[in-house]
């Protein structure tokens, strides 16, 4: 079999997904046996013009991480889509918007104002904001347009597969190498992770799910053996796809949903709200008010990694 041509790109992301690829440890050698890297900004020195010069479908597999929140990122997503046979949305940001899509609770003007004017570390007395075009003595300088709304990869181009996680864990990356090495591709649109909800993989003891109040993580020290949700902590397990190895839960931290919604669920936050409503002991209107008060920042918690991909998509403003 000829070696695969592999590309990886980071869009609006933190670089953690790029490092996650290296978390293959010794299997990175296996990856090197089956694939040559043709573009990967964090690791090798190829420029955008190298990608532009490639014939269409030259790249066999592109692992695209990060959300799409600027005109440049959308341009690169479209460029890599045209040049790639397989486009994989890699990581929570590319799949669901991830942490960067928490920006969809605000708009561009508010973000610019805070980042460049209000933040106490700024020294910007003339309130200068980044412009898409700036004229300097030597010519014109361009910057990409920052979008009002953060998008997922598949809201911009078609993605062939989805690899969730913030970042995707070793086991998930092993699955990708296995798929690429075997050449037996899953059906288009497949999510490379578990086919179960995280709760089904969690080994904590589960008894009756009925809670009378919600606790914030600093208010109690949870029993390490028992279901976190049953102890009153908001754990996104019922609304999250498994496959992560329960990393957070194993260190007594409730899940925040980075593997995205489980199979069959379109909206992760709505699923979590539904799960919580069915176990919280609400007898009257007072109970509803109590639930609302105790579930601090419900939207930012239930949609921690999936706001761009959700039915809400963004705050209306």
């Amino acid at each position, binding site marked *: 079999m000829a070696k695969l041509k592999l590309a990886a790109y980071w869009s609006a992301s933190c*670089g953690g997904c790029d490092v996650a690829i290296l978390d293959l440890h010794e299997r990175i050698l296996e990856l090197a046996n089956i694939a040559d890297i043709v573009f990967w900004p964090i690791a090798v020195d190829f420029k955008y013009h190298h990608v532009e010069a490639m014939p269409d479908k030259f790249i066999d597999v592109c692992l695209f991480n990060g959300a799409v929140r600027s005109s*440049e990122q959308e341009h690169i997503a479209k460029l890599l889509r045209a040049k790639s046979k397989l486009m994989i949305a890699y990581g929570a940001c590319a799949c669901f918007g991830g942490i960067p899509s928490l920006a969809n609770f605000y708009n561009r003007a508010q973000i610019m104002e805070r980042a460049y004017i209000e933040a106490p570390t700024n020294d910007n007395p003339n309130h200068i904001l980044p412009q898409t075009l700036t004229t300097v003595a030597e010519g014109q300088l361009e910057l990409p347009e920052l979008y009002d709304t953060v998008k997922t990869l598949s809201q911009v181009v078609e993605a062939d597969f989805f690899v969730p996680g913030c970042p995707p864990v070793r086991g998930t990356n092993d699955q990708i190498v296995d798929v690429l090495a075997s050449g037996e591709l899953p059906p288009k649109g497949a999510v490379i992770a578990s086919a179960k909800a995280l709760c089904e993989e969690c080994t904590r003891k589960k008894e009756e799910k009925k809670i009378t109040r919600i606790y914030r993580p600093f208010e109690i020290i949870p029993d390490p053996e028992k279901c976190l949700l049953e102890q009153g902590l908001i754990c996104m397990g019922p609304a999250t796809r498994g496959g992560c190895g329960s990393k957070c839960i194993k260190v007594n931290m409730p899940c925040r949903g980075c593997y995205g919604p489980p199979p069959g669920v379109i909206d992760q936050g709505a699923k979590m709200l539904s799960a919580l409503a069915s176990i919280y002991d609400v007898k009257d209107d007072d109970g509803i008010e109590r639930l609302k008060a105790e579930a601090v920042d419900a939207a930012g918690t239930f949609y921690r990694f999936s706001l761009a991909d959700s039915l809400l998509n963004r705050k209306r403003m």
Partner: protein
Amino acid sequence: MKRISIDPFTRLEGHGRIDIFLNDAGEVANVYLRIPELRGFEKFCEGRPVEELPRIVTRICGV
């Protein structure tokens, strides 16, 4: 004025581009560094519970 663009710069964490302007003698007249990236942690951390921030701001840089 001749312009040499390095886009993107590679093998480091983050997004960036450098434009080098050369004068008629071929000497460097000016250099501009551009960061074409903003996610807005400064703003969207507002409104989040404080105990959640360790798991949010770790996504500023994952390298």
